[in-house]
C-alpha cells in the first residue's frame, strides 16, 4: 500500500484531465443500466407469479399479463445487454489502472456473471418461445432459470462492487497482486449486505414501476379485471418487500458503521469524532461545520450502537490527503436522506393499500391513491439511484478502498469528453427508442388487440415463399 498514493492524492490539481469526464460517463452509464436491472431480476418474477396464477386459477387475464410482460422483459433485456456491453468496454477504456492492477481479483466475479447472463438469455428465449407451444407447467418451469440466473448475475456484479468497498482475498507485493483467493474475493465482507439490499431494491422498483403503469390506466377509467390484476400483482409484491427493505436497511447501516467508517461519517454528516452524535436530517457541510439541518439529538449514536454514548468516527479521522471533498460528503449525505425519505413515502403508500385490503378486500377508493401509485414508479427509481450514489460516491476518493485512488485508476489518454458525448447521444437515442417501442407495443395490445408482436429473443414468423411484386404493381 505504501504512502505514495496518499501523497499523490493531495495534489488534486494534478488529477488527470480525464478524471472528470470518465467519472461522469461511468456514473451516467451505470445510472442508466441500474434502472434496467430490476426488470431482468424481479419483473421476470412478477411474470412467473402471473403465470402461476393463470394456470392454477385457469385465469386467462393473468396468463395474458404474463405473456405480455415476458415480451416487455425481452425488449428491456436486449437493451440491458447492450448497455452492459458498453460497461465492459468502459472498464478498460476509462479505468485501465483498476483493471491492469486488480483485474486478477476484481475480474473473477464478472466471469461468473457471464455464465448467468448467457443462461438468462437462453431461457428468456425458451420461455417466450414456449407460449402456446409448450404444455403449461413445463413452460412455467422454463421461466424459473430466468429468475434464478437474474439473481445470480446480480450477485456477481454486486460481489465485484463489494470488493471495491472492502477488498479482500489478495496478497500484494508492492503494487502487484501476487496471490488471489477467488472465494474470498467473491464473498467479500460487503457482499451479503450489498447483495440482499440490491435484490430487495430490484423487487421494489420493478413492483412499483409496473404497478404505476396500470394505476395510470385505472385513472383513465380502465377498471377491467385485467388492468386490476396488472396493478395488484406487482403492487402487492412491492408492498411486502418495502418494509423488509427498511428493516434490513437499518441492519446495513450498522454494518457500514463498523466496516466502512469513512462512508458512514459522510452518510451521517459527522465532521468531528464523538458520542451523542445527532441524526441530521438534510443539512450541508460548510467550512467543516454542519449547517441548515434538523438535528434529532443522539439519533445517529442511538441508531448505530443503541446508546447515546456510542462513539462515531468523524471525517476528521480520515487523513487529509484522502479525505473526501465537502461537496462529495454533501452528495452522499443528501442522497442517503432522499433514499430514506422516498422509501418511507413508498412504505406509507403500501400501508394505505394494506389497510384498505384488510378492511374491504379492495383498493383504497380515493383517486389520490391511484395518483400516488402512478408516481410511485418514479419515486422508487429515485430511491434506487440515490442509494447507488451513496455506495459509489461514498467510496471516493478511492476506487478500491485503501488500495487504489480513483485518480490513479483513470486513463490518462485522449479526450474523454468526446467519448462521453458520443455515449450520451447514443444513450438518449436508446432511451427514447425503448420508450417508443414499449409504447408502440402497448398501442397494439390495447387498441388493436394484436398480440403476436415480434420481440427480440422471440420466435421467427415464417418467411414468404414467393417474391412479392408490390414494387412493380
Amino acid at each position: 500500500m505504501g504512502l505514495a498514493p496518499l501523497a499523490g492524492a493531495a495534489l488534486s490539481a494534478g488529477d488527470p484531465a480525464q478524471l472528470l469526464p470518465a467519472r461522469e460517463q461511468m456514473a451516467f452509464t451505470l445510472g442508466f443500466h441500474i434502472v434496467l436491472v430490476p426488470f431482468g431480476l424481479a419483473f421476470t418474477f412478477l411474470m412467473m407469479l402471473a403465470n402461476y396464477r393463470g394456470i392454477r386459477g385457469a385465469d386467462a387475464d393473468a396468463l395474458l399479463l404474463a405473456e405480455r410482460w415476458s415480451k416487455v422483459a425481452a425488449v428491456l433485456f436486449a437493451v440491458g445487454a447492450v448497455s452492459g456491453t458498453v460497461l465492459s468496454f468502459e472498464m478498460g477504456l476509462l479505468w485501465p489502472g483498476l483493471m491492469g492492477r486488480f483485474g486478477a481479483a476484481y475480474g473473477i466475479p464478472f466471469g461468473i456473471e457471464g455464465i448467468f447472463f448467457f443462461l438468462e438469455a437462453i431461457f428468456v428465449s425458451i420461455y417466450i418461445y414456449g407460449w402456446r407451444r409448450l404444455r403449461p407447467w413445463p413452460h412455467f418451469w422454463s421461466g424459473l432459470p430466468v429468475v434464478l440466473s437474474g439473481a445470480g448475475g446480480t450477485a456477481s456484479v454486486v460481489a465485484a462492487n463489494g470488493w471495491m468497498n472492502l477488498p479482500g482475498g489478495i496478497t500484494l507485493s508492492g503494487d502487484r497482486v501476487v496471490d488471489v483467493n477467488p472465494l474470498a474475493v467473491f464473498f467479500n465482507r460487503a457482499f451479503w449486505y450489498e447483495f440482499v439490499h440490491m435484490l430487495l431494491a430490484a423487487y421494489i422498483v420493478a413492483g412499483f414501476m409496473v404497478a404505476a403503469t396500470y394505476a395510470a390506466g385505472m385513472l383513465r377509467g380502465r377498471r377491467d379485471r385485467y388492468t386490476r390484476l396488472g396493478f395488484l400483482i406487482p403492487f402487492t409484491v412491492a408492498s411486502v418487500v418495502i418494509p423488509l427493505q427498511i428493516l434490513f436497511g437499518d441492519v446495513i447501516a450498522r454494518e457500514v458503521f463498523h466496516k466502512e467508517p469513512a462512508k458512514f461519517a459522510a452518510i451521517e454528516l459527522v465532521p468531528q469524532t464523538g458520542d451523542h452524535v445527532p441524526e441530521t436530517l438534510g443539512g450541508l457541510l460548510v467550512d467543516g461545520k454542519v449547517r441548515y439541518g434538523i438535528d434529532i439529538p443522539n439519533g445517529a449514536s442511538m441508531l448505530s450502537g443503541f446508546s447515546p454514548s456510542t462513539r462515531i468516527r468523524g471525517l476528521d479521522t480520515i487523513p487529509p490527503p484522502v479525505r473526501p471533498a465537502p461537496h462529495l460528503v454533501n452528495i452522499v449525505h443528501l442522497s442517503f436522506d432522499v433514499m430514506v425519505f422516498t422509501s418511507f413515502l413508498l412504505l406509507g403508500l403500501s400501508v394505505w393499500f394494506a389497510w384498505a385490503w384488510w378492511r374491504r378486500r379492495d383498493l383504497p377508493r380515493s383517486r389520490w391513491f391511484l395518483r400516488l401509485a402512478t408516481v410511485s414508479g418514479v419515486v422508487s427509481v429515485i430511491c434506487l439511484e440515490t442509494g447507488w450514489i451513496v455506495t459509489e460516491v461514498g467510496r471516493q476518493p478511492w476506487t478500491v478502498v485503501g488500495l487504489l485512488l480513483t485518480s490513479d485508476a483513470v486513463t490518462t489518454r485522449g479526450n474523454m469528453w468526446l467519448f462521453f458525448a458520443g455515449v450520451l447521444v447514443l444513450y438518449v437515442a436508446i432511451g427514447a427508442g425503448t420508450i417508443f417501442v414499449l409504447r408502440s407495443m402497448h398501442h397494439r395490445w390495447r387498441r388493436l388487440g394484436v398480440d403476436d408482436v415480434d420481440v427480440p429473443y422471440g420466435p421467427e414468423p415464417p418467411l414468404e415463399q414467393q417474391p412479392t411484386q408490390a414494387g412493380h404493381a
Partner: protein
Amino acid sequence: MSTLAAVILFTGVVLYAIFAGADFGAGFWDLTAGGAERGRRPRELIDHSVGPVWEANHVWLIFCLVVMWTAFPPAFAAIMTTLYVPLGLAALGIVLRGSGFAFRKVLVRTAEQRVTGAAFAISSVLTPFFFGTVAGGIASGRVPDGGNGEAVGSWVNPTSLLGGVLAVVVCAYVAAVLLTADARARRLQDLEAYFRHRALVMAGVAGVVSIAGIFILHADARHLFDQLLGPGLPFVVLSAAAGLTALALLRSAVPRVPRGFAVVAAGGVVIGWGVAQYPYLLGTHLRIADAAAPRPTLVSVAVIFVAAALLCVPSLILLYVLQQRGRLEEA
C-alpha cells in the same frame, strides 16, 4: 496454466470472429441491398438469419473482455490505453447495432424500420473494421508493454488497415455463403442466386486483399509474415482451401456443407494469426506467461469456462431442439 488461459481467451476470439463475423457480414449485405423496396426480400432473409444467434455473439465479446482483464490484466490495460480510439468506436458501433436489433423487430412502419435498419447496417461494417485494426495493431507489435502507445499510429498503419479491410471482406464473404445456404434450405431460388453471386464476388475480393496482404506484411510486420509462413501456414492454407471448397459446393451440396466450409475459412484466418503470434500476447515483446495473473485466478478462469460450457451448451441444445420441433409443427 497461462497457456491454457490464453487458449481459452483465443477460443473466445475465434468464436466471436465466426459468429459475430457472419452477423456483421449480414449487416454489410443489408447496407448494400439498395432502396426499401428493392432490398426488401434480401433484408427479410437477413433478419431471419441474424435474429436467433445475435445474443450469443454479444456473450462471446464480453467473454473475451472478461477473460482478458482477469487472466492478463497488464496486457488488457496496455491494449486499452493504446488502441482506445478504435475500441471506443467499436463499442459505440456495437451499441448502435444492438439497439437496431432490439427495436427493429418491434417496429412495424417501414420508415421507422429504415432508421433502425440503417443504424444496424452502417455499424455492422464499421465495427469489424475497427476490430480488424485492433488485431493489426496488436499483431504488428504496436502496443507497448506499459500501454499508452501511439494513439493514432497504433491503428492507422498498413497492417491495421489490412486487418480492418480483411475483417470486413471475410465477414461479408461468410455471410453471403450462409445466406445462400439459408435461402437454399428455404427454397427461395431468387435469393439463393442473389447471395451466391455476391459470395463469388466477395471471395474474389478476399483473394485480392490477401495477395496484397502478403506484400503489406512483408514490408510492415516482418516477424508476423515469417510466422504466418512458418507455424501459421497450415491454417492459412486450410482457410483458403475451405473458402474455395465452400464456393464450389454452393450449388450442389446439402446447404449445411458449404456453411461448414465457410466457417472453417473464417476461423482458419484467425487461428493462423493466433498460432503465428504464440508465445507472445503483444507483438513480439510481451510473453503470455509474463502477462498472466496469479495461478488461482487462471484456475478460476478455467473452472468458469468449464462450468459455462456444462450449463450453457445443454440449454442451447434445448432451445435449438424446441425451435426445430416448432418449425416442423408449423410446416
